[in-house]
């Protein structure tokens, strides 16, 4: 690894924005394990794809790590009990997106321990198919927030080849520090995870992309990468939002764009979040399926910002209370970061596989924004990482001219919100693109069904 074009340099993509980071609130806080609470609610659809099929019945005793629901099809994963206890209900529960969805409720056995009946999986005995199956059975999904089943990505079609495994450690959303702490505290597991992945993927090299605002994470992984049996290179990325978007990271590191309608794999790249790779390592080393995750609890209205290892299914209000609670000034609850996070009405919903952070903002950050007409200043154009024209799309959206927005590639917009962030006229750009995309998709779906009948 003596020669590398990457050595010491910092890379990035074009455009993007620089919102205030707010990471100092929690970036120094070591991960704390949250004790068990009385009750856990586990929605069956915590991932993208078909909700899992329950395997337990009401009143049944379950053990920590025991599978309680199995994948329903290929794009679906298993679900496991996070504690020893008893199934106290199977029914509809509110999920973080505000709908009532089917789930399993577990009443915790007061004597439940951290122990698990699990045994490590013997990697040597697995073939490719067995490996993919194992990842699916471990319930592992992308932990960066998307919750896409990991094994689906790992099932590389015959005609494609993965040259690079690319780990995403950017964590470009302000406030969030969960990935940061994983990299600082668990670098061995991350490198191990890469080796496990590569046993089956057989890539040429692995990259770990990290924004330079996490020098301790860069140092920790660089040290291990230097002695790794497989070439692993830590790439320093500029602190810029949305550097952690899959496309932006690939472009920063490889200098290539992911062509429209293609996948990273078409460029020979497999992208995974650092936390996801750690989860894979945990499963194959310890036999622990995905039953807990690290959640950053932070915000300007949280008393003690923290990074907490939370058993899945823990009601969010318990997590907040355990961290020390909120100040009287709390104005908004968000799941995820302030740029793309989803606003919550209540904290009664549970932490699920995709919960990377619980953000409670005070009135200092929740301001009324006066909207002015678009002055065509072009700041949104200069901000959009996908080179879209938010100004134009915003004008069209305001007039309800959805169809014309297609011409401006509105469907490519990945809702990073950089445009709304910079707009001096306070125009709800990304907000209107979300609406437009919904309407256009619905229309397309309707036309499709109409065409079929």
């Amino acid at each position, binding site marked *: 690894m003596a020669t590398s074009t990457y050595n010491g340099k910092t890379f990035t993509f074009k455009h993007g*924005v620089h*919102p*205030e980071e707010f990471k100092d609130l929690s970036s120094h806080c070591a991960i704390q394990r949250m004790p068990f609470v009385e009750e856990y609610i586990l929605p069956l659809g915590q991932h993208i794809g078909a909700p899992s099929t329950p395997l337990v019945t009401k009143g049944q005793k379950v053990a920590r790590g025991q599978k309680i629901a199995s994948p329903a099809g290929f794009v679906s994963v298993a679900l496991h009990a996070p504690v020893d206890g008893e199934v106290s209900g199977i029914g509809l529960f509110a999920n973080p997106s505000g709908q009532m969805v089917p789930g399993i409720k577990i009443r915790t056995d007061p004597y439940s321990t951290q122990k698990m009946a699990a045994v490590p999986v013997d990697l040597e005995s697995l073939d490719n198919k067995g490996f993919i199956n194992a990842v699916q059975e471990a319930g592992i999904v992308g932990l960066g927030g998307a919750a896409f089943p990991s094994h689906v990505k790992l099932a590389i079609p015959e005609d494609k080849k993965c040259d690079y495994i690319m780990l995403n450690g950017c964590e470009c959303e*302000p406030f969030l520090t969960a990935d940061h702490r994983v990299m600082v505290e668990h670098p061995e597991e991350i490198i191990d995870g890469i080796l496990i992945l590569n046993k089956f993927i057989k890539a040429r090299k692995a990259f770990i992309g990290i924004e330079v605002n996490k020098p301790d994470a860069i140092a920790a992984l660089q040290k291990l990468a230097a002695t790794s049996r497989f070439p692993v290179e830590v790439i320093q990325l500029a602190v810029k939002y949305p550097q952690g978007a899959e*496309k932006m990271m690939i*472009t920063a590191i490889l200098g290539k764009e*992911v*062509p*429209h*309608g*293609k996948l990273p794999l078409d460029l020979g790249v497999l992208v995974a979040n650092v936390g996801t790779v750690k989860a894979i390592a945990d499963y194959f080393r310890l036999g622990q399926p995905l039953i807990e995750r690290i959640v950053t609890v932070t915000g300007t209205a949280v008393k003690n910002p923290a990074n907490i290892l939370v058993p899945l299914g823990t009601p969010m*209000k318990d997590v907040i*209370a355990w961290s020390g*609670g*909120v100040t*009287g000034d*709390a*104005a*908004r609850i*968000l799941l*995820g970061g*302030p*740029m*793309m*996070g*989803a*606003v919550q009405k209540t*904290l009664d919903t549970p932490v699920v596989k995709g919960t990377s952070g619980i953000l409670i*903002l005070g009135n200092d*950050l929740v*301001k009324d*924004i*006066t909207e*002015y*007409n*678009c*002055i*065509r*200043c*072009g*700041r949104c*154009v200069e901000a959009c*990482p*996908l*080179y*879209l*024209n938010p*100004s*134009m799309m915003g004008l069209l959206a305001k007039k309800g001219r959805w169809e014309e927005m297609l011409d401006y*590639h509105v469907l*490519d917009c990945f809702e990073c*919100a950089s445009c*709304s*962030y*910079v707009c*001096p*006229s*306070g125009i709800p750009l*990304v*907000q209107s693109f979300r609406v437009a995309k919904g309407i256009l998709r619905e229309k397309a779906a309707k036309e499709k069904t109409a065409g079929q009948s």
Partner: protein
Amino acid sequence: MTPYNKKLSVSTSPFLKAEDTTPEIMMTVVYTLVPVVLVALYYFGLGALLVILTAVFSCLFTEWLFNKPGQRYATLKDGSALITGLLLALTLPPGFPLWMVFIGGFVAIALGKVMWGGLGQNIFNPALLGRAFLQAAFPTAITTWSPPDGRYFSLRGTNGALPFFQGTNVDAVTSATPLARMKFDHLPTDSLDLLLGATGGSLGETCALLLLLAGVFLLLKKIIDWRIPLAILLTVVVFSGIVHLVNPEIYPSPVFMVLSGGLLLGAVYMATDLVTSPITPKGTWIFGIGIGVLVVLIRLWGGLPEGVMYAILLMNAATPLLNKFTRIRTYGYTN
């Protein structure tokens, strides 16, 4: 225990916002105009003050007039009418009759902005549109220049002309603008005078140095697009430079071309008007180059001594097309 359960308004992300707001941007532009205004007052005295006050009042009044009752003051706060008023005043001669100034301001806002649907919807720069109207309606008055003679407290003969009268200009005889002197008599003006502004001309056309400084400031603040002034100035320098080399007797030097007349005022404040210039980088280049070429063409071979106003208005008209045809290539697409 949870105070946030009581009343939680549910708006959507993002919750972070860059600091600049539209009124702040507009006001920054206004602040940079203050020195330019002061220089105008220094050279032209009370006449300049009256022209400026009238133009600003007229623009604000017109904006107020066309706002819905109940929110009459709403759009005054965004600062754009104030800018239009100031810019319009800066394009007028110091002795311009005030009633004409008032009409210019009215036209600038009513026909230049309100008619299109308000801020951001107009195609033409409102101040220039107002000025173009005045040029068409009052061709004599608008080309009657007083010299910067340091008469601070006396009125220029024509400022106080009654409505529908032009007034007699008693002191304008000797003070054709540098551009007119060049065009019609081939008499150059000293570059230093041009830089400092001690020449005849409109209020804001005089002190090139200040305009350059203001331009640099606005560029650094990223309020105006650097490509536009750069494209205009480069084009003018190169184009007029070539012509000058071919026949230095007849055609003025590029330095003169840049420093004289309304070029800098136009390049810094009018062409860069966010609303009426293209939004795509490529479109912006074409826009600037177009203005540069038109300015040189009109100045050297057209019937008028100055062409900045028409050059910008023409390219304003082309802006929607430029926006349309210079689409930015979306990420992941091949064109």
